[in-house]
């Protein structure tokens, strides 16, 4: 693994000098180049398009009985009818809409918050870093689902509150990853030069640090989407969902509560769960593809819900990260 000094040599490749092509361009290339990431991207895009155009595609309205409850799948009703005689295929399209809306919006909140905390902690260091990392440690240890249950239940389970709760409580991983990256970036030559020439901190962060951490932010964001979609179904299943909205989570809940299992109406309960699995898988594949491109050593480790605190201290892990990045460009 590269020793830290190596990055200060003028000949060292990769991140030492301000890079030739922007990191975000690399993200796109990573997605096109990596087979699994590409598959994930295609699947996710198709699902997003389907849910955007749900009102045009859905064959039946979702607030109206269109046949005998629990009718099995037929030519008229591709996935049969649910307990109230609603068309499952139409519900699925609309449900995916809400689930993805929750997933994407909560992720935006989590990513912005996580990046902000990570950049500030990593760049400022000292007391602020210490305080922010204590906070992060705390949220890393606390069981998040029970916490979300308590907050959402007390606050009132509207769609907006659920988005806010998931978003505000799941920024931890992003913050940790970004902080580690920023801390190592801070010592690179081009940042030091920028500081020496009198660039302000804001300028350094916006111009030099943010573009460099963007790939990691994107990778974490995509992984966060899967986490948020997952959590929405869990909350909905426990009765903490907006009763006025159909989501994939509430579909699973209804299937459970209203006897789809005992009636053997598998078509009312298999599709929503399968769709959640596909969304989560697609996001995992994309996130994993981006991360492995930027750090081949990471391989599959990031797929854990929470990253293991691997053996070496922060200094060592930064080197391995930087070493990996250099490895790709060499």
């Amino acid at each position, binding site marked *: 693994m590269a020793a830290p000094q190596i990055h200060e040599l003028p000949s060292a490749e990769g991140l030492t000098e301000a890079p030739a092509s922007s990191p975000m361009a690399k993200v796109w290339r990573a997605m096109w180049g990596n087979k699994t990431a590409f598959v994930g991207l295609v699947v996710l895009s198709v699902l997003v398009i389907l849910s955007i155009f749900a009102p045009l595609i859905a064959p039946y309205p979702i607030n109206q009985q269109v046949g005998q409850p629990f009718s099995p799948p037929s030519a008229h009703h591709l996935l049969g009818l649910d307990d109230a005689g609603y068309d499952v295929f139409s519900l699925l399209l609309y449900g995916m809409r809400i689930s993805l809306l929750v997933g994407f919006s909560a992720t935006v909140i989590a990513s912005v918050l996580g990046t902000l905390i990570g950049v500030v902690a990593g760049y400022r260091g000292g007391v602020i870093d210490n305080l922010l990392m204590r906070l992060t440690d*705390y949220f890393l240890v606390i069981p*998040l689902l029970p916490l979300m249950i308590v907050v959402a*239940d007390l606050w009132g389970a509207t769609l907006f509150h659920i988005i806010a709760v998931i978003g505000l409580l799941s920024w931890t991983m992003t913050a940790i990853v970004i902080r580690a990256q920023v801390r190592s970036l801070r010592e690179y030559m081009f940042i030091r030069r920028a500081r020496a020439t009198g660039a302000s901190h804001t300028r350094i962060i916006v111009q030099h640090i943010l573009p460099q951490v963007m790939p990691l932010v994107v990778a974490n964001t995509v992984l966060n989407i899967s986490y948020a979609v997952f959590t929405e179904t869990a909350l909905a299943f*426990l009765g903490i969902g907006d009763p006025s909205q159909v989501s994939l989570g509430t579909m699973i809940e209804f299937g459970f509560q209203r006897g789809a299992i005992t009636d053997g109406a598998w078509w009312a309960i298999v599709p929503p769960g399968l769709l959640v*699995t596909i969304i989560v898988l697609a996001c995992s594949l994309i996130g994993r593809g981006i991360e492995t491109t930027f750090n081949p050593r990471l*391989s599959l*480790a990031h797929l854990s*819900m929470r990253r293991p605190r691997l053996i070496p201290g922060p200094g060592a892990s930064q080197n391995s990260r930087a070493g990996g990045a250099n490895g790709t460009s060499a």
Partner: protein
Amino acid sequence: MRSKSDYILRRIAAAVGTLFVAVSMNFLLFRILPGSAAVSMARVPGAGPGLREALTREFGLNHPLYVQYVLYLWQLVHLNLAVSFYYHQPVLGLLISDLGNTIPLVLLGTVFSVIFGVLTGVVGAWLRGSVFEHLSVVPALAFYATPVQWLGLMLILLFGSVLPTSGRSDPFLFNPSFMQESLSVLNHLILPSLTLGLVLYGQYTLIVRSAMLETLCEDYVLTAKAVGYTKPRILRAYALRNGILPVISVIALSAGFIVGGAILVETVFNYPGVGLAVYNAILNRDYPMLQGAFLILTVSVVLCNLVADLIYFRLDPRIT
């Protein structure tokens, strides 16, 4: 260079600190959030201002917030977690008997997932590039992505006719012997713990696999190969131990996730543990119960993390 006892003390101090923050937050959440317990309690239909005032005084809500906080801590030190609105019994007693049901479920699920995860992970790394690698990674990814509650429902659909799907034991056993009762309890544990095990094992597979891949690239493994040790010996004596090490910290870090999974699994299988208590507390608007369950879950997770930290420290001399 820090000493060993110093490290242990720091870990314990950190755990105590986290617990303190958790307890304080537990207090604040239920006082500050809109629609908090006390307000909704006084919202009985047809209640006059008198009831509200009586309730407020009875629960000590007329005191300023910091006095309430001290009172709360004081009661907590005496292990008083208040009385359930719904069951009219002390929350702690109810939750402890629930915890007695949850622990076997979680243990069984975790043990299954760790054994299965380590096995498939090692196979995936060792037979890299063969069909077996895909056979190990693809199911791991799929189960990892599956919603817990849905997987439980799928297992009920598949095995519901052969295995019990609800409750802790068969309530219709007539005057059962100890053997019969235990068998019934075990039988009822199969599907819930299998569900939990299946959703958990995927991440262990992936982590063991990547840790093993990394270990197999280390110089000492290369040296062992050059010396001419057989493959199984290298695996057993050199790679496995280092490859499995991260699993311990991952189990600890996923303790929060395991708890979340347990809530869902217990709800699906109507299994009377702390998770089902959470679910019922939400249904019944039983805030003392919800608060108590949240506290118990948090304390367990923090303690698990502490224990894992200490085990890890014992196993890996490199940590300081």
